[in-house]
């Protein structure tokens, strides 16, 4: 969709009644953010609205799930517009094509892309508006715009006395030509970008005020819960709701696609009625795998199929034959749940031939598809209202909860809120895939001559494409949804991009080695999987950086120096590695009873090196300190960078120490925080984060803190015990 320049600028009556200067400014050519070069379109990405009563509204096209977009993106706009970030009123974007993420052509928040994809377009949007406001003021004063300055919501006259508030200039500004190449402020003039600033949503989030999905309240609202099969893919054979229907407050019980829904006037009554329900499931074709079988099927697949080559240099087989030693290891990682603290939920209301859905979703336009699929409505008849998210981590890219809420609302025609219990949330997640890695390296003397990495496991897009394809092709008639899904599966590269989810972080192996072979053996045990904070990097990081540690040990070198000697051609890698070694005082001895491990990993364009200091106390692994150096290019909000990196470290340590979803006869064994533990206050290490000063384009920080901490902890435990652990979660004794 290409837009005429004039379309960017609209003068309309605003909600406040005043005149509104709306500037919808798109992404622009030449930036590295995945702008669509094919049709040369500026994909509108932000919506700025200035009103005559001096309000500045900014439509956030990325959701706020804790990662700080609310503050970060608002800061970009504020900097260029010349107002304080706190004076801007952000609001969440509804599902609409103009809010799509240009990298995915979908309106979704994920992949640590919000800042990278908004960095240029939002500053351009702010700068354009500022220049038009200045031009408007200059025309009033009959002087040249270059003589005027914009300061905190006003245009200031060169005499220093006179000034005009933006609100008074709105009408005139809207008539100014849109600047062709708005000039962005040079770095020295930044007032907000790169400066320590609090989070704009901190006060609301400290008083219980923000409305998360679970807090949505509508007049006459009722509550729904859904009983789903314990085994993925099972269907309802029959159910008996006699007892349930007799309980107070129960309004209806009926079957939906994913199970049996109970609707009641109160949440607790719906839960009690659910307990009184008896359901017989048809397990024909349902998942029946157990975790052991998953891994044995992976090993079998790895034996039988060397997999597709994803990157190859030199000749690994030659290197192996000529090598003095060949080292081999395989690593196993379990399924992991997202465990957002706010469980899945959605509220829906079907009336007058259309449905409204309020949901904490990372992918609003996929939510429209999800609701349309289970009703007779078209996506155009579905409106998604995005709320604050109580954590996302990739879980809320899958809109199964919207599907359920829409099915129920469509049937009962009342506003209805659906809430998952924690147990349901844990058992019906779409998991970080279990993976197997087979590593081989050839060594001659103390030189690494060959690297071979075989990744074994599923691809996430296979599971996702069913939802994503129709959202990318909204013109497709509904009966085509299934076909589009299959096209995505079978003709990779046509309907869907190449899926890097299994191999990312492995194919970018950065160390110097003359012969290298990286392969993916694609095998899918049928367990639903999805993106999980840092995705493929989360498992490839463990495999690559643990094996590097094994190699260092094999050639009798210090793990830090071994890495260093193989990466001195990569300055940003080297920069974080050296910095973390300094921070952790690598060369001085660890405290009595403790040991240190190091790991270096780049993900989402961000370079991270970490040193973990750990011990084993009273039969438990104790992580004392984590040192971290991060290079994420130019920094918009250093405070949020540190905060996100530290959060990533806690998230990674949680996976390393406890994360383990297991299956038995197709059923997930874990249910709540007693058997799917999260790190608590009393287990938290001290975390030291140092940010490298950089002029490079900014890259994301929500995920890159996660991958290295897992191998760094494993490597520390090896240094402590002399025993190498090759599967997760890590144990105190092996």
């Amino acid at each position: 969709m290409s837009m005429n320049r004039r379309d960017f600028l609209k003068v309309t009556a605003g909600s406040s009644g005043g005149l509104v200067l709306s500037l919808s400014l798109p992404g622009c050519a030449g930036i590295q953010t995945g702008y669509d070069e094919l049709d040369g379109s500026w994909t509108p990405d932000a919506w700025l609205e200035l009103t005559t009563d001096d309000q500045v509204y900014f439509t956030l096209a990325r959701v706020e799930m804790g990662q700080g977009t609310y503050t970060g993106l608002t800061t970009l706009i504020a900097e260029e517009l010349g107002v304080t970030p706190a004076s801007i009123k952000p609001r969440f974007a509804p599902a609409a094509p103009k809010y799509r993420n240009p990298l995915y052509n979908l309106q979704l928040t994920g992949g640590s892309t919000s800042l990278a994809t908004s960095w240029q377009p939002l500053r351009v949007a702010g700068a354009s508006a500022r220049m038009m406001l200045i031009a408007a003021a200059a025309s009033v004063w009959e002087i040249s715009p270059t003589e005027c300055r914009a300061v905190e919501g006003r245009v200031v006259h060169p005499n220093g006395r006179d000034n005009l508030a933006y609100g008074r200039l709105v009408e005139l500004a809207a008539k100014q030509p849109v600047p062709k190449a708005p000039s962005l402020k040079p770095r020295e003039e930044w007032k907000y970008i790169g400066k320590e600033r609090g989070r704009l949503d901190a006060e609301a989030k400290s008083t219980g005020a923000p409305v998360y999905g679970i807090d949505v309240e509508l007049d006459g609202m009722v509550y729904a819960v859904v009983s789903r099969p314990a085994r993925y893919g099972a269907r309802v054979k029959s159910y008996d709701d006699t007892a349930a229907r007799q309980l107070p407050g129960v309004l209806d019980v009926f079957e939906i696609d994913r199970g049996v829904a109970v609707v009641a006037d109160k949440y607790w009554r719906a839960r009690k009625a659910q307990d009184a329900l008896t359901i017989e499931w048809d397990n024909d074709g349902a998942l029946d795998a157990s975790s052991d079988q998953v891994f044995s099927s992976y090993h079998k697949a790895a034996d039988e199929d060397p997999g597709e080559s994803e990157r190859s240099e030199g000749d690994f087989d030659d290197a192996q034959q000529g090598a003095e030693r060949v080292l081999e290891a395989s690593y196993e990682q379990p399924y992991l749940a997202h465990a957002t603290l706010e469980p899945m939920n959605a509220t829906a209301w079907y009336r007058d031939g259309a449905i409204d859905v309020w949901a904490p979703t990372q992918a609003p336009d996929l939510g429209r598809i999800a609701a349309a699929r289970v009703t007779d409505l078209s996506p155009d008849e579905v409106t998604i209202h995005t709320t604050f998210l109580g954590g996302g981590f990739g879980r809320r890219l899958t809109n199964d909860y919207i599907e359920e809420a829409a099915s129920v609302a469509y049937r009962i025609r009342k506003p209805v809120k659906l809430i998952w219990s924690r147990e349901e949330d844990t058992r019906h997640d779409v998991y970080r895939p279990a993976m197997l890695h087979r590593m081989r390296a050839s060594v001659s003397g103390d030189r690494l001559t060959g690297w071979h990495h075989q990744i074994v496991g599923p691809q996430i897009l296979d599971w996702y494409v069913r939802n994503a394809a129709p959202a990318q092709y909204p013109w497709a008639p509904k009966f085509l949804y299934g076909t589009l899904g299959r096209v995505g599966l079978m003709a990779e590269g046509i309907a869907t991009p190449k899926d890097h989810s299994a191999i990312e972080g492995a194919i970018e192996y950065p160390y110097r080695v003359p012969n290298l072979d990286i392969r993916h053996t694609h095998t899918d045990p049928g367990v639903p999987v999805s993106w999980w904070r840092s995705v493929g990097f989360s498992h490839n990081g463990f495999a690559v950086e643990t094996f590097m540690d094994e190699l260092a040990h094999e050639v009798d070198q210090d793990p830090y120096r071994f890495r260093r000697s193989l990466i001195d051609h990569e300055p940003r890698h080297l920069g974080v590695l050296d910095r973390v070694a300094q921070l952790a005082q690598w060369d001085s001895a660890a405290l009595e009873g403790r040991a240190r491990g190091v790991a270096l990993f780049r993900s989402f364009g961000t370079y991270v090196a970490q040193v973990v200091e750990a011990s084993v106390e009273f039969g438990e692994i104790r992580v004392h300190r984590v040192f971290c150096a991060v290079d994420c290019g130019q920094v918009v909000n250093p405070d949020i960078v540190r905060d996100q990196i530290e959060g990533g470290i806690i998230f990674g340590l949680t996976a390393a120490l406890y994360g383990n979803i297991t299956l038995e006869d197709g059923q997930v064994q874990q249910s709540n925080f007693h058997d799917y533990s999260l790190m608590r206050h009393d287990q938290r290490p001290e975390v030291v984060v140092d940010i490298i000063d950089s002029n490079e384009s900014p890259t994301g920080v929500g995920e890159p803190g996660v991958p290295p901490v897992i191998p760094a902890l494993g490597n520390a435990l090896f240094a402590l015990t002399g025993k190498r652990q090759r599967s997760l979660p890590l144990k105190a004794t092996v």
Partner: protein
Amino acid sequence: MAVSLTVNGRERMLDIDSDTPLLWVIRDELGLKGTKFGCGMGLCGACTVHLNGHPVRSCSTPVELADGGDVKTIEGLSQDGNLHPLQKAWVEHGVPQCGYCQSGQIMSAAHLLQHNDAPSRDDIVAALSGNLCRCGTYSRIVAAVESVVGDDAARPDREEA
């Protein structure tokens, strides 16, 4: 059953199933949504409120046990429009990420400060270890609590014992 509660200083009469967890009464009957549902089993602390001056997991407290009691939620923590010192510290330290756990964290911390003039870091950690944060904001939480230790405004001798 008929239940009477004093919530954030206001008396409320309700007719509600006696086994309904206090959490859902607070959220759905009284419309106070700042108290969150995380696990329903007393394992995460997101639902922490003060009942008769004690921090309780409202998800696991049937409303009949709270009958006649005095309840304070996050909405009742600030007084006369002034943020509680902990809330101010939360803003200053940029504590919340997604924010979902924070009401519970603050309610646990508020109780600690009410009863301990000078909690050590270990005391703080111990008082908060039942409050999970999936976003990993723990270090800032502890720093924020430490910053208000000794602040008298953190221990207004209000209705709590």
